[in-house]
């Protein structure tokens, strides 16, 4: 969120406006005094929605009374369905111009790329569409890093005077250090304000961090816990499952041991006119306990009437998979629910024997297509 990006920018000594975070209206006066934030200021709701200004999430305050009034009204309210738990109160800048600057990890070049434009602020998306030449892109070779000619290129090729060269070079180096240290997919400053004395100030920022690197970024892991997350996603993560909601109102859920197969299952079920509510990737280890938990989580998804299990791992033990289905049926009341099982791997005969002894609503097939066909035959029960 914005205030977290601002905190990171501050850590890297990037020029930011003074600001503070509050989560209760009665804390406004104290927080402003503590951080030395001066009026006039901007009161910004910390919710992850686009068009936050238009939704009323950004307000201006000339004095403490106004700031407190905004805080009372915004905190605890909902903006486009998301509850406002925190406000970021930040000094209002007087900028002459607004630029755009970001470093992102570019999939095409597989290297970091600087994106720069003199058309910053709200206009950047419009510029990208109508006037892409006014957006400069520059690859940073990770073996070379940020060098002084890069800021020079960005300004010069944009037709800008070099007055801000030193400030931009300094900013780029700090932003790149932050990008590299924090395993960022994106470090964005927008708008990047240029004041009348050619100073640069990061007015708003966005940082996107690689999930796979969280283990080495303890401070970010703490932030992540503050993000809203669907309950079943969180519940699934406790077991190291990846639970992905697909389509609200769907009646089928899928459980598999790889995301490629999950995508293929969604494609085939959708093509046959049925809707997938959610999918779950087991990750490693298809033990019977894990299978049972996965089924419990999938059947907890509102509207789910059938779970399709498709496991093909080569060394997966089919008796464990089947045992998991059995366990789920013993532990949870799954009356009237359909369970389709397709599994390939070792001990298949043993697994088949267990499955076939369970219940007529547990249907075993030898392929994904057969599973989908079996679902289609029982469409009235979905």
């Amino acid at each position, binding site marked *: 969120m914005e205030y977290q990006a601002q905190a990171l920018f501050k850590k890297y000594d990037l020029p930011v406006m003074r600001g503070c975070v509050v989560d209760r209206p009665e804390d406004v006066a104290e927080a402003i005094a503590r951080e030395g934030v001066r009026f006039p200021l901007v009161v910004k709701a910390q919710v992850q929605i686009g068009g936050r200004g238009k939704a009323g999430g950004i307000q201006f305050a000339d004095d403490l009374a106004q700031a407190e009034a905004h805080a009372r009204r915004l905190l605890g309210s909902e903006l486009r369905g998301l509850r406002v738990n925190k406000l970021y109160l930040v000094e209002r800048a007087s900028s002459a111009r607004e630029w755009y600057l970001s470093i992102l*990890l570019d*999939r*095409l070049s*597989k*290297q*970091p790329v600087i994106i720069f434009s003199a058309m910053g602020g709200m206009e950047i998306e419009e510029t990208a569409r109508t006037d892409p030449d006014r957006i400069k892109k520059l690859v940073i*070779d*990770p*073996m070379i890093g940020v060098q002084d000619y890069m800021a020079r290129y960005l300004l010069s090729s944009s037709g800008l005077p070099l007055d801000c060269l030193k400030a931009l070079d300094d900013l780029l180096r700090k932003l790149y250090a932050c990008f*590299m240290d924090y*395993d960022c*997919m994106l470090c964005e400053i927008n708008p990047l304000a240029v004041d009348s004395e050619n100073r640069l100030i990061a007015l708003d920022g966005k940082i996107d961090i*690689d*999930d*796979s*690197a969280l*283990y*080495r970024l303890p401070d970010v892991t703490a932030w992540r816990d503050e993000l809203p997350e669907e309950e079943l996603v969180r519940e699934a993560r406790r077991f190291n499952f*990846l639970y*992905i*909601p*697909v*389509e609200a109102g769907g009646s089928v859920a899928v459980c*598999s*041991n*790889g*995301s*490629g*197969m*999950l*995508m*293929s299952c*969604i*494609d*085939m079920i*959708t*093509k046959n006119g049925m809707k*997938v509510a959610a999918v779950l*990737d087991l990750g490693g280890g298809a033990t019977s306990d894990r299978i049972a938990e996965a089924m419990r989580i999938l059947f907890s998804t509102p509207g789910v009437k059938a779970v399709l299990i498709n496991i*093909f*791992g*080569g*060394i997966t033990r089919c008796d464990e998979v089947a045992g998991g289905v059995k366990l789920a049926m013993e532990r949870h009341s799954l009356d009237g629910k359909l369970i389709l099982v397709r599994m*390939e*791997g070792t001990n298949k005969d043993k697994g088949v024997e267990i499955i076939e002894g369970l219940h007529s609503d547990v249907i075993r097939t030898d392929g*994904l*297509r057969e599973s989908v066909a079996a679902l289609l035959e029982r469409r009235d029960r979905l």
Partner: protein
Amino acid sequence: MSIIIDQNTRLIVQGITGREGTFHTEQMLAYGTRVVAGVTPGKGGQQVLGVPVFNTVREAVEATDANASVIFVPARFTRSSVLEALDAGLKTVLTIAEHVPVHDMMYCYRLARLKGARLFGPNSFGIISPGKSKAGFMAHRIFAPGSVGVMSRSATNCYETVFMLTNNGIGQSTCIGVGGDMIPGSTFVDLLPDFFADPETKAVIIIGEIGGNEEELAAEYIAAHPEKPVIALIAGKNAPKGRSMGHAGAIVSADGTGSAESKERALRAAGVHIAENTQHIVDICRKLKEEGRL
């Protein structure tokens, strides 16, 4: 013939003493892979399944003349293991682990390019040239020697396809897990020239998925080099937009970049056969066989 890996490959297993490393070394040896050395820091001088273990990749290369490495270490150690293999002069390096930080791969990828080495993975099952050799963790029972080259971003979709191909009497020359991550060490377009140059490979199957532009780049190459029949399957047409599907690379951005439609359009325009599902791939291969093209 086959590509990248064959009976002459002299393989190192980095992380050979770990649970996964040992288990899959046994599987690889059973399949006939020439595993000539293992590397685990601090375990130099030991043997695992008769394979000598070294403390460093450099020592392993010096002692055994190894020419490829497969890395079975956890994600957080992958970067240093890849750099060690590249620095020891190996030109074929495979990484298996899931959840390798993207920045780590970015650095490894760049170094591999600069050193003229080929890097595969991460988040990959490895490479198998059926009947000859395998490097990785794929269940080799489902593969059979033959003349179709397969490249896949997804292990499960590849298994499913290969299982059906083999059951229908269609064997494979080499199957490569390019991996499901955002920065794959090698991708479709890097490998097409190898498959096209390999006399044993008569047709190529690309199992792609949403996200990125690897399939589009492949389409460009195929359009310029229409040398062999190519069949493609793109998974994730109905995946929810804006959500990563577990494969870090499989995400369609809000502006539609990386969508299955865009990929299929590009591939179709390049003359590639588009398959709706794995069964359809088999149908197309059978037809090619009937026409004597396989």
